[in-house]
């Protein structure tokens, strides 16, 4: 317990908390406007920001020292996963807010999208962590930008839905996030077993 608390002290909390707060503010706007067509895109952007926040949880500025300690990468990753509570709690708040409003978007579909977003950001950061001590910046950009721009970019949005919607002419968000979450879990498990000390 003590070692987990020590490892969590090294988390880049200003980025994780800052992005989570911005996501919650944007998501609150989306919930308030849930019955307008702008509501779901705002919520999708908020979820993408939560993915960006989760990508910063693996940042370790003292990685040159930490990576050669006896604590293995799996234990470090597991401890850092505790920092995911911030974006997950922010997302749960948005889910509760959405559940209290009578909308056509099912809550469980949004929950799946939340899990997928957070795991995707963490997985991309996990891969980046094999190469650098602070992968958060690039991982968050690589995760959040495609997630925000894909629904706005017509060639992509007509094929894949990255947020729950009633349209059915493309791959549904449930399918997309179920696949993304499964692959992300596999990537996280593989990356956590890799040795970072000899990169």
């Amino acid at each position, binding site marked *: 317990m003590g070692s987990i608390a020590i490892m969590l002290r090294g988390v880049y909390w200003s980025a994780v908390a800052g992005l989570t707060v911005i996501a919650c503010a944007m998501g609150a706007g989306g919930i308030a*406007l849930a019955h307008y067509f*702008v509501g779901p895109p705002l919520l999708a*952007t908020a979820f993408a*920001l939560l993915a960006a926040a989760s990508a*910063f949880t693996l940042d370790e500025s003292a990685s040159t020292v930490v990576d050669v300690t006896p604590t293995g990468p799996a234990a470090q990753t597991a401890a850092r996963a505790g920092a995911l509570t911030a974006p997950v709690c922010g997302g749960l708040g948005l889910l509760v807010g959405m559940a209290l409003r009578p909308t056509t978007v099912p809550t469980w579909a949004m929950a799946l999208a939340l899990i997928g977003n957070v795991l995707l950001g963490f997985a991309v950061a996990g891969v980046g962590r094999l190469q650098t001590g602070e992968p958060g*910046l690039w991982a968050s950009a690589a995760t959040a930008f495609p997630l925000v721009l894909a629904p*706005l*970019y017509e060639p992509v949005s007509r094929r894949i839905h990255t947020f729950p919607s009633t349209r059915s002419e493309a791959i549904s968000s449930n399918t997309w996030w179920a696949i993304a979450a499964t692959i992300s879990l596999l990537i996280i498990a593989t990356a956590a077993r890799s040795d970072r000390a000899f990169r």
Partner: protein
Amino acid sequence: MIVTAIRPRMPGTLPTLTWHETRRYVRSPVLLLALALTAYAIYDLSRGVVADVDELPTYPASFLGGFGMVAACWLTQSMQRSAEALNVAPTPARVRTSALCLMAAVPFACGVLSLLAVVMFRRVDGDWTEGAFTTTDRFAVLLSQVAIPALGGPLLGIAVGRWVRAGWIAPALFLIIVGWVMLANGLADTYRNSLPVLLMRMFAPFTFFTTWTGGGVQTWRGSPVAFLGWQLCLCALAVTVALLRDTDRSRRRRLLGCLFVVGALAVVTWALAVTGGLHHAVITYPGGLPQPI
């Protein structure tokens, strides 16, 4: 003994620095991605007739402006990481900032090329699809949606990068701007004649003036020409704010005066953008005259 430190005159420092910063900027993977996505979007959407004329200009603004902002911010922040070495060099900080600002000419040139491509290759059903605007207003809309964001985005990135060290700020700022534009334009789609919504819509670095409704094109309130002036004022504000960092006292006073004047101009152009143009939204159908909504 009086020792006088004389800063050696460095002829050609600014062009040299501008050249180096431009080379670093165009090698940025984020900017390269933005250029590739812009080119593909223009190619993809100019293959057929587009129903919504606003669809195509969104991509250069998002990619060259948004991604360009992130790339410029990270490039500027990288200068802070090597500050110990740079601060002993005879080049003052304002020259380095000026070089970064001049570097923004590259994305702006790409924005102008995108504008030319949009004008030349975009196929629409007719002039009516561009809303109830004069030719000048139509050109101002395109300029404000395609070319100016490609200049303003990187300048904003440089200003943010000069003052803030955290790298996550730039992507977060981009997403906040995207969220704000979506919110303001989404509300405008429902409350077309609302003044508070119009104020919100114009208080943004990017906005839409028309929307496609399936059968016709709605033209919203607001003056495109004045909005263009507002965007240029935002660009000037970004440059001034960037130059304010690490400047000496005399220059700081002049820059603060400049900031005050440009800020006042920004308020005036914003007010003109809100009060100018149509006084209520109209809808245009093929072959018909604009009708009030």
